């Protein structure tokens, strides 16, 4: 156990936001889901009791007959904003007094940093470079993340849960978002920051970063495992494997979408276009963990080998 190495990584100034992220993301996930579960209990109560549903104010927040529905922005909101501004300022100034921004040696194109890391918020993408070629990990995937995020409001056909926390009424969308945001995005940032060392090799927290470490691992292409050597053969084989993956993933996602009675109801509301767009993005998103597993468990580098691109 090399505690000094662990401390060096954790206390690198630019890694401090990740340490912050490690606390803040679980906290707010808990904070949001707790309110979601509280609302879900209220919803269950109201579903069971239609009489109560007619008269209830339908919030978990305290309520009394005769209370105004709205309050004045001045002072009730502005004082909170003012307080928030002061608190953020204090945090920022204390943080800036106690911790210095990093400044390394002057830039030197002849001296490569090892490991040479992108800023922390792009480390998820850099980690993806292990599993995909740069055109996928650096260009196609980020573009799809952006477009996919923009598409969310237009493919979510579920009208419930608009303006309040709930888990029960939006299980599929919330679990999908948590999978994409926390399991893929945040945890890959954490891996890229805390675990990847020299040569972008995997160093568990607490082990020493050994700059002379060598790993003898031969990554193989899937066609080679099956003994396919011809160029055309590899192209056709890869296309078939990818097609099989797409079919299997689409089927699995379809099963998930139509698993419960409620989900089937929402599914019926979707237009064909909405369904196709959603399937496309989910199938591509799922390809990331699948490729990670294929690499980590079976040492597979490429599945589809062509003269122009490799996947």
């Amino acid at each position: 156990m090399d505690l000094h190495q662990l401390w060096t990584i954790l206390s690198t100034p630019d890694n401090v936001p990740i340490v912050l992220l490690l606390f803040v993301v679980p906290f707010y996930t808990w904070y949001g889901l707790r309110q979601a579960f509280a609302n879900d209990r209220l919803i269950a109560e109201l579903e069971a009791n239609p009489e109560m549903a007619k008269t209830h104010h339908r919030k978990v927040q305290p309520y009394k007959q005769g209370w105004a529905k709205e309050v004045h922005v001045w002072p009730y909101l502005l004082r909170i904003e003012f307080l928030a501004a002061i608190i953020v300022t204090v945090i920022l100034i204390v943080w800036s007094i106690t911790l210095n921004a990093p400044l390394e040696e002057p830039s030197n194109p002849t001296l490569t940093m090892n490991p040479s890391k992108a800023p922390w918020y792009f480390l998820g993408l850099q980690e993806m470079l292990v599993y995909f070629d740069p055109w996928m990990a650096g260009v196609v995937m980020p573009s799809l993340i952006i477009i996919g995020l923009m598409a969310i409001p237009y493919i979510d056909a579920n009208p419930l849960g608009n303006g309040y926390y709930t888990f029960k009424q939006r299980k599929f969308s919330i679990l999908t978002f948590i999978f994409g945001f926390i399991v893929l995005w945040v945890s890959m940032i954490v891996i890229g920051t805390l675990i990847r060392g020299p040569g972008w090799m995997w160093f568990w927290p607490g082990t020493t970063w050994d700059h002379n470490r060598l790993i003898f691992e031969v990554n193989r292409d899937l066609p080679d495992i099956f003994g396919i050597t011809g160029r055309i053969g590899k192209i056709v084989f890869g296309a078939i494997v990818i097609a099989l993956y797409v079919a299997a993933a689409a089927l699995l996602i379809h099963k998930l979408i139509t698993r419960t009675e409620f989900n089937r109801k929402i599914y019926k509301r979707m237009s064909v276009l909405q369904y196709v767009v959603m399937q496309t993005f989910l199938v591509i998103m799922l390809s990331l963990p699948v490729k990670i597993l294929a690499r980590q468990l079976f040492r597979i580098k490429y599945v589809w080998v062509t003269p122009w691109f490799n996947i």
Partner: protein
Amino acid sequence: MPETNGHNGQPPAGGANSGGDGNGGGGKLANVIAGAKAVHAKAHEELKETLKAPEKTDVWKSVLRVKHDETPRSRALGVLSNVFLHLHPAKINRDAVAYKYTWGMGGMTFYVYITLVFTGTLLMFYYHPSKVVAFRDILYLENDVPFGKLLRNMHRWGAHLMVIMVELHMFRVFLTGSYKKPREFNWVVGVLLLVLTLLLSFTGYLLPDDQLGFWAVTVGTNMARATPLLGHAGPFGPQLGMTPFNDVRFGLLGGSIVDSNALLRAYIWHCVAIPIIASLFMIVHFWRVRKDGGISGPAPVQLEREMKEPRKL
């Protein structure tokens, strides 16, 4: 003469002058002193009134335009008629002011953005975007400029804080389903703002011209050479005639390597272009929050059996 002087509120010096060019003598002097005392008393009286009720002065009224008192109407006007506060409605859902629902992340992101513009502008006074002096400017800033180190630290940590807050803001908006009708488009604007935030932070990374920024930007822009069709190492790029000297990476860096042109480009994107674009999108974002009916909740919960039939396409 002293009376008229006092009446006009002229300084006592005027009285003294008129005394000086006259006949002279003790009587005149006494007159001048008496006049000065009257002016003094009047000024004292006026000052007392002003301090007692400053809101009644013309200056005050000209600045604030409307009268403020303890009425609900006046409270509403205080927000609506103020250029900085008119982004807010006059009244708001009573449960929405609780931190619990909103987490305050959107507002705090905007506040951090303002502090970044402020500290960034101050940093620009000490920084030349030139390969020769950029790194030395940072050293100068850290070691010689009063509070220079604090300034740079605040800008750096503020930027990190902004990225974290933007992501949490998006998380909250998703969890509360606030992107749903009628706020679909504002979510799209928000995603663009997230991208712009990341780009702002990334372009700033290169500016100190140290090893950290240099290699981070080298790694980052090396991806651009693999852009399909538009990069010289990307799929179908070479077939379309892409070389290291005409592809999309060359356009980003202003060269085939991260050098002085890249530094200048990063500087201009970071300090001028992206802040302007981001500000425009922020204007739209905030405007749409209001036009789409204000903040989304906490709304009364809806029940499954109350779901309306889907609208026809």
